[in-house]
């Protein structure tokens, strides 16, 4: 049954309820379709989960439903009433709240004030802010959501988990009828996730309509009354609790039966290869402590760990983007002291950052110059002036090697899809003729097909002699491409898994619990 059919049926039974319907919604950004005719019904007193891979359009749908984006087509109906021109403000007034993926709190305002930002309670006659009521109510709400902090604490001093709970508390104080959770659990520890789920169950029994996005299948299966799967911006399936199997969900999400993607097999024995990178006792407490490992030529190693475990910070410290208190990095026999990105690149160590848009891509600059940006001091020159013809050749060569699909090298790089941008970034770093490559979440925000290509590029690089280190939250991905995986837990390496032992289940336990 398509969800909008359900909606039509309920329309007769229950007018004026708090059912929230998004009907035949479509949305495109810059001509690229993100959602195509998707419908979703959130029933009061139930949890409806959205599943799908990155880029499936889940967050976009929630953002439309909370007034952040305007849909190109389709309509939103809350309790039988059409919501036109929904804005974040009118959404809040209607009782719709989005708990965003990344908490958006006011850093310098108190936790209590953050609860009410945009709708501060006021005295009836004077219209002045009612601080007493804010203090009283926020204490009770904090207790309800299990947030144990002083209400006057500035938000910047809260941990990410506390900020997330504060976001939930915000929905409560605004008496929302509909709460949309956009991947609330990703930065949380298992215990914190439990607290959040208890909270969600409580809200559900109070008759609220809850929407939920998570990448963790088990979470989705355990909390949801309904599951809807999106793929590439299209509706794939909808099923009530117990109306599906785990495998069905996975197949619906990735569009093909599981098990098709096979582990990349390469000459697995790398122990006799030459050691190329040695990291010794790298420490910057409390972020990470005593990190030591080595990489060998032809090796693909993985770095697994939860959010906040220090994965990215370690990579940044190796690459000189972040200070380490002590420790050594030796690249191919040469110690890298006082590391800067420039020195690392010149020595043959490259780093592809996690957030390309912020850390790597020059969006408005053409592709060729994005590709050559890492080797500007070494570009071919005549009379100290860069020979642009030769620069173009270099860029062409590199982009061919990483198979960037593009119109011309002269178009700006933000015209490329996420996957192709990532290939262009890899092309950039290949020009530096690296010996070691660190990839931070190389497939994040990349569509499914492009993922496999990126895996191919990584394995090709390893075959050609590079040592690759992949940082990823996607354990399946690590199990797929890595010869060896180091597991980080709270800033320390707690385990190393090699060869056939690299499995998702095995890694998962280490990552979450820090021990077997």
């Amino acid at each position, binding site marked *: 049954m398509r969800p909008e059919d359900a909606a039509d049926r309920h329309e007769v039974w229950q007018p004026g309820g708090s059912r929230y319907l998004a009907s035949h919604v479509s949305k495109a950004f810059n001509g690229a379709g993100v959602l195509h005719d998707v419908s979703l019904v959130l029933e009061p007193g139930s949890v409806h989960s959205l599943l799908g891979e990155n880029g499936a359009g889940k967050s976009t749908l929630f953002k439309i439903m909370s007034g952040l984006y305007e849909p190109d087509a389709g309509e939103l109906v809350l309790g039988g009433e059409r919501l036109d021109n929904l804005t974040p403000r009118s959404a*809040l007034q209607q009782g719709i709240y989005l708990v965003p993926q990344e908490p958006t709190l006011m850093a310098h305002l108190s936790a209590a004030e953050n609860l009410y930002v945009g709708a501060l309670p006021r005295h009836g006659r004077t219209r002045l802010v009612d601080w007493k009521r804010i203090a009283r109510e926020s204490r009770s709400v904090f207790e309800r959501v299990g947030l144990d902090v002083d209400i006057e604490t500035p938000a910047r001093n809260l941990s990410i988990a506390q900020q997330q709970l504060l976001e939930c508390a915000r929905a409560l104080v605004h008496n929302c009828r509909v709460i949309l959770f956009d991947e609330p659990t990703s930065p949380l520890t298992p215990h914190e996730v439990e607290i959040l789920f208890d909270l969600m169950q409580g809200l559900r029994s109070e008759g609220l309509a809850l929407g939920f996005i998570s990448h963790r299948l088990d979470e989705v299966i355990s909390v949801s009354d309904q599951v809807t799967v999106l793929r590439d911006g299209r509706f794939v399936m909808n099923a009530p609790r117990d109306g599906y199997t785990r495998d069905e969900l996975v197949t619906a999400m990735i569009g093909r039966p599981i098990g098709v993607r096979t582990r990349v097999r390469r000459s697995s024995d790398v122990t006799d290869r030459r050691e190329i990178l040695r990291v010794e006792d790298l420490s910057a407490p409390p972020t990470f402590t005593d990190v030591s490992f080595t990489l060998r030529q032809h090796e693909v190693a993985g770095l697994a760990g939860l959010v906040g475990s220090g994965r990215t910070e370690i990579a940044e410290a190796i690459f000189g983007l972040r200070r380490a208190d002590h420790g050594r990095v030796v690249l191919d026999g040469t110690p890298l002291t006082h590391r800067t990105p420039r020195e690392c690149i010149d020595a043959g160590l490259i780093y592809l950052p996690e957030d390309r848009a912020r850390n790597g891509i020059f969006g408005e600059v053409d592709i060729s110059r994005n590709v050559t940006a890492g080797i500007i001091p070494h570009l071919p020159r005549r009379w100290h002036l860069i020979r642009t013809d030769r620069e173009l050749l270099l860029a062409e060569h590199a982009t061919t090697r990483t198979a960037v699909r593009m119109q011309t090298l002269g178009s700006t790089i933000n015209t490329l899809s996420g996957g192709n941008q990532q290939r262009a970034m890899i092309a950039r770093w290949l020009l530096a003729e690296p010996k070691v490559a660190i990839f931070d979440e190389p497939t994040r925000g990349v569509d499914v097909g492009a993922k496999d290509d990126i895996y191919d590029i990584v394995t090709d690089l390893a075959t050609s002699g590079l040592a690759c280190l992949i940082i990823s939250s996607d354990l399946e991905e690590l199990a797929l491409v890595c010869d060896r995986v180091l597991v980080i837990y709270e800033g320390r390496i707690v385990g190393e898994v090699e060869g056939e032992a690299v499995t998702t289940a095995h890694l998962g336990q280490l990552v979450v619990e820090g021990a077997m």
Partner: protein
Amino acid sequence: MREVQLILAIGIVVAVTTAAHPSFVAPGNISFMLADASATAILAMGQTIVVLAKGIDLSVAPILGISAVLVAFPAQDLNLPIIVGLAIVLGVGLVLGAANGVLVSIARIPPIIATLATLSVYGGLQFIVAKGEEISNIPNSYAALGNDDIVAGVPWVLLIVIALAAAVTFFLRHTNMGRSIYAIGNDATAAHRSGIPVRRVTFISYTLCGILAGIGGLIYLCHVGSVDSTTGTADNINLTSIAATLIGGTALTGGRGGVAGSVLGAIFLSVALTAMVFALIPAIWEPAGVGALMLLAMLFDRRSTARSPSRTRRPRRAP
């Protein structure tokens, strides 16, 4: 607390200078320093409102100048009552501040550019309304307000400054608009998502800044007793108002601070600059002194905030 630090800093400057020149704490000099700080303090209040909302207003000097000139002429020629003068400066400040507000909030011109442009435009306007003249024949009632003491060492204008500071603090702390100013200064996108009308709040912040700059013009006229076509701009009052704001602990990045600190910052500047005079440092070093104190305040501010954990660490996807 920046306010406490500033009171201590003022105390130290006063103590050191008094040790060398006991006349530094003569009631006449204390009264002079406080009265001299008053126009800066009032402008800094407006500047603080704008900076709290993550803006900046570089045009407060000519707003002060135009307001002062437009009151000075009828005051000289018609013996205009001060209360009517107040109405004039409120109107002038409102209009010019609102114009800034329109440029920043509706035309979406970056504040530093918008107000740099209006600095120039308003500066020209001041020349036109002043007709190139200096107006110095101001009625005694004005001079009395600007220079007389309540008791020895405590000028009337200090009372005005304190009353205004109390009013603005109350506004920022206890009204919805005041809290919205802090909110958009913290994170305009998040504020928008929380349903705060960001543009309206931005507009109001510049309008209030203009109004306070207008009041500052009236106080300036009363205190100094003369105005001309470059009053305000020539006094470097843009710089001192921003300096007082930053020294007072309001973050240039928005969302943190308040006007009490700015008033103390203005008094600190006035005391420090007077101390320079007592130390026989030539007056040409005054702007350099203001700049140096501003830089010191920024360095101090960075050190005191650098250690707290940042909230900007982005949560990442976990398995």
